[in-house]
């Protein structure tokens, strides 16, 4: 926020000391560099007389935890920082014609213009660009005597949470992670099991019971057997029949416990196997849903291989942890606790010694797990890279063959595959060396404890049965300890997978429908674009204050060089993205206020990029209107000049297209996409280089189809070839994200401006290749 309150009191005091009346200041902006690009506290402020540029050195008087985080908190509290003046410059308002910013790679600069001369003022980090642009807006208002308060309303809001001062991760989202949700990835993962609480409780209960039985088993099978049944004194004094009966009870008890344990195991595995696939189904559906509502921008930034990996591989990883890892974790944890308690009851001295040694083993395993987790992530990254190379190769086969690059591609695959192999060998060889050494240490510790127990038996402090049971318990500790230290690795992989999944689920669509969207009774197709600004990446504008107007039923032709922003305009009208500033209105309503479904139903997009879904030709034509009758499908195909070629195919309208289906030519595919748009019957038609890659004959066919489609609709046609736009009512020439020329064909030709230049270039090019005259 550009308010004068942004100036700390220490800085205001320094300005006062230099004779500036700070009570007259109107607003300010804080920068972080000086004119030479040195980091320093820099401030620019404005009053009705002029512009003030202040740079100060700052010193923390009372540092919080020894670190001053420049970006974490909002305005640093003045008592904590002492400012010393480095420079102060006052420039009278009449000596400034204009202020502007210049953008560099990672920085920006405030530029002063006066009498057609420019002067460079502060540099600043690119993240401060918005604040400096607001400052310039405010400055212009003061200079031109406009209503400053009105202008201030359009300033960007503070990027800091008012409650705790933490910077919003995304200033557009204004969600403070400190103040709102603190759920960790693990908690969120467990939330997927919320609907199965009863079953989860039963499973945990069964595990508890099972663990209890396994802990009691050594007591009966060893201590009771050796100390109370087979002890020499008892054997000598008890009749054989009674002794055999006692032995029989012990055997039956052991068998009974084993059978009971098995039954509980089968039941809980059965229940778990019954509901876990549902949980995974929920997760997959949630990811897929999230992916559907995300804007196009998300897909252009992600590798397809990595996205597919998230849907399938990552959710499978979660499944396997919960079907295998989770039950074993619970049983092992319970066994560990129960065994330690039982050991304490039997011999607290030996147990204490064991407990002292346990942490050493556990810590060693934990350290190793952390190490192996990192190694595992490296493996995953390399494998994802490898799968992207494979998908790249499959999608680009035609180009690879055309350029005879098969060998190079094989080498590229070989290189990454080699990296995957080396990383795997490194992982395996490290694991196979380190773990046996650790186990050797564990067994040495166990043997030492049993030796100490032997001494106690000799001294008569412990019975033989108790020592034998104790040694069984020590051995019973190995598995839980080993598993619990190792399962953290497994769990980490599961959380890693969940984190990647949540990244998709959490990604907010750049395009969100407002709560109560406007639903127009009927769409006429008037389009008005005003002051439109857009950037795909922060600080890299593609559309700059663009204005355009098309009346309902008119055809607007957009021409311009590659990269001028033509397709971006089409994407913005269809609301595949939202603008950074400015607006697009359809029939007087901002597209952001319109119902998304109504908007998309009324915009038909025919682009150079044609996608046919898996299914029949008829399915593809009726994609926008699944209930369309076969009559409608054929009528649309005829209008799109597609009917004849479809009928020549052996399976006619039932020919399967898309992945693995019938191969169609570019022109045929385009005609199908036009038929699809005809069925949709939109009021606004966007033709984005629809015939750019077609030969002249095919283009003529498609142009005829398009002319039929355009009747009664507002059409925005984007084309390289000016001949394609011969029927346009108005033409707009786009250059560097701006409209540089607008008007009817004859008007532009007479003007001999940008359109005329483009026309001449193309005419010359056609003449050169022998097409024009």
């Amino acid at each position, binding site marked *: 926020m550009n308010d004068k309150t942004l100036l700390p009191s220490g800085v205001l005091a320094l300005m006062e000391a230099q004779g500036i009346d700070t009570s007259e200041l109107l607003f300010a902006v804080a920068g972080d560099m000086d004119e030479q690009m040195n980091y320093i506290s820099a401030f620019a402020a404005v009053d009705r007389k002029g512009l003030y540029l202040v740079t100060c050195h700052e010193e923390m008087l009372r540092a919080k935890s020894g670190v001053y985080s420049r970006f974490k908190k909002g305005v640093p509290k003045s008592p904590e920082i002492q400012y010393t003046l480095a420079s102060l410059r006052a420039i009278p308002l009449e000596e400034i014609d204009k202020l502007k910013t210049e953008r560099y790679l990672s920085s920006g600069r405030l530029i002063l213009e006066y009498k057609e*001369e420019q002067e*460079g003022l502060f540099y600043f980090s690119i*993240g401060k660009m918005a604040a400096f642009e607001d400052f310039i807006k405010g400055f212009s208002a003061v200079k031109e005597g406009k209503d400053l308060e009105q202008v201030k309303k359009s300033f960007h809001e503070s990027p800091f949470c008012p409650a705790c001062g933490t*910077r919003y991760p995304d200033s557009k989202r204004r969600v403070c*992670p400190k103040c709102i*949700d603190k759920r960790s*990835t693990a908690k969120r993962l467990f939330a997927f099991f919320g609907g199965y609480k009863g079953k989860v409780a039963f499973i945990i209960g069964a595990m508890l019971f099972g663990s209890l039985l396994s802990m009691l088993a050594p007591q009966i099978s060893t201590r009771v057997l050796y100390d109370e049944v087979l002890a020499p004194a008892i054997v000598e004094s008890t009749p054989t029949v009674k002794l055999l009966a006692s032995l029989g009870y012990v055997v039956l008890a052991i068998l009974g416990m084993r059978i009971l344990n098995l039954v509980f195991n089968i039941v809980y595995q059965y229940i778990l196997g019954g509901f876990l696939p549902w949980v995974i189904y929920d997760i997959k559906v949630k990811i897929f849903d999230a992916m559907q509502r995300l804007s196009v921008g998300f897909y252009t930034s992600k590798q397809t291989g990595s996205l597919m990996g998230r849907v399938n591989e990552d959710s499978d990883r979660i499944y396997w942890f919960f079907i295998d890892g989770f039950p074993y974790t619970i049983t092992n944890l319970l066994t560990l606790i129960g065994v330690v308690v039982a050991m304490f009851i039997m011999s607290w001295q030996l147990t204490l010694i064991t407990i002292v040694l346990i942490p050493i083993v556990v810590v060693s395993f934990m350290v190793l797990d952390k190490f192996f987790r*990192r190694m595992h992530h490296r493996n995953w990254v390399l494998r994802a890279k490898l799968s992207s190379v494979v998908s790249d190769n499959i999608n680009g086969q035609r180009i690879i063959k055309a350029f005879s690059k098969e060998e190079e591609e094989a080498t590229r695959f070989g290189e990454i595959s080699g990296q995957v192999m080396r990383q795997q060998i490194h992982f395996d060889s490290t694991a196979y060396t380190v773990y046996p050494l650790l186990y050797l240490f564990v067994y040495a510790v166990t043997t030492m404890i049993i030796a100490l127990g032997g001494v106690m038996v000799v001294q008569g402090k412990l019975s033989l049965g108790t020592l034998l049971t104790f040694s069984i318990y020590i051995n019973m500790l190995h598995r839980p300890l080993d598993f619990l230290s190792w399962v953290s690795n497994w769990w980490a992989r599961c959380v890693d997978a969940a984190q990647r999944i949540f990244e998709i689920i959490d990604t907010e669509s750049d395009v969100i429908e407002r709560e109560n969207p406007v639903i127009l009774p009927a769409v006429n197709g008037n389009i008005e674009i005003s002051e439109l600004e857009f950037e795909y990446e*922060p600080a890299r504008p593609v559309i700059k204050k663009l204005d355009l107007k098309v009346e309902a039923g008119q055809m607007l032709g957009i021409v311009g060089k590659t990269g001028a922003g033509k397709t971006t305009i089409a994407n913005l009208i269809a609301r595949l993205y939202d603008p950074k500033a400015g607006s697009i209105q359809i029939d007087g309503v901002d597209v952001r206020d319109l119902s998304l479904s109504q908007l998309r139903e009324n915009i038909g997009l025919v682009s150079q990029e044609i996608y046919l879904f898996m299914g029949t030709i008829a399915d593809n034509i009726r994609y926008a209107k699944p209930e369309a009758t076969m009559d409608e499908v054929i009528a649309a195909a005829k209008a799109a000049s597609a009917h004849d070629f479809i009928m020549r195919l052996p399976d006619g309208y039932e020919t399967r297209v898309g992945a693995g289906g019938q191969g169609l030519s570019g022109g045929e595919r385009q005609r199908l996409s036009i038929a699809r748009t005809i069925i949709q019957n939109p009021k606004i038609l966007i033709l984005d280089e629809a015939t750019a890659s077609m030969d002249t004959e095919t283009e003529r066919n498609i142009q005829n189809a398009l002319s039929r489609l355009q009747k009664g609709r507002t059409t925005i046609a984007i084309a390289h070839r000016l001949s394609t736009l011969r029927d346009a009512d108005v033409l707009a020439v786009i250059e560097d994200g701006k409209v540089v020329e607008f008007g009817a064909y004859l008007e532009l030709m007479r003007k001999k401006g940008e359109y005329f230049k483009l026309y001449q270039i193309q005419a010359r090019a056609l003449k050169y290749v022998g097409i024009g005259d």
Partner: protein
Amino acid sequence: MQNTNLDIGLLDPSVLTFYINPRGFLALKKGEEDFKRVKLTRALPLTDPDAYIAVSDMSGKEIGILKSLLDLPEEQQKLLQNELSKTYYCPTITQVRSIREKLGYFYFDAKVDEVHRTFAVKDISRSIKQMDDSTVFIADVDGNRYIIRDFAAIHPASRRKLEPYLY
């Protein structure tokens, strides 16, 4: 087949005189022509920052390409290096103190140009890019770009923290 007649508009260094204009901006005298302010663009900013430098006027029209900065007199080289260092300035991360994930955003606490800073990164697979084995770029939610010039050379503890996010 090698085309030996490629005209990429290379500038003849012997007719160029770069200077700083009275307002502090880089300007160029090319023979008789005087460009009051020019801007420089690197063609190979990562691998060969001193080669193929495009010189343009402020309307963006390319005046020509300097094949190598080293073809200019030393004093001129310094002038251009100074200008390029400002245009291509990118804060350097020398230490990663912590990376904490909250609500799908990653909060970095790092030492940037010897100053401690915190910044937030979203969509890590898009915002953190490892260009080759050594260079890592990180872009925060505000569009600030940070660089780690030699990933292998930063402290192992920092490397360990960042490694899980390199895709």
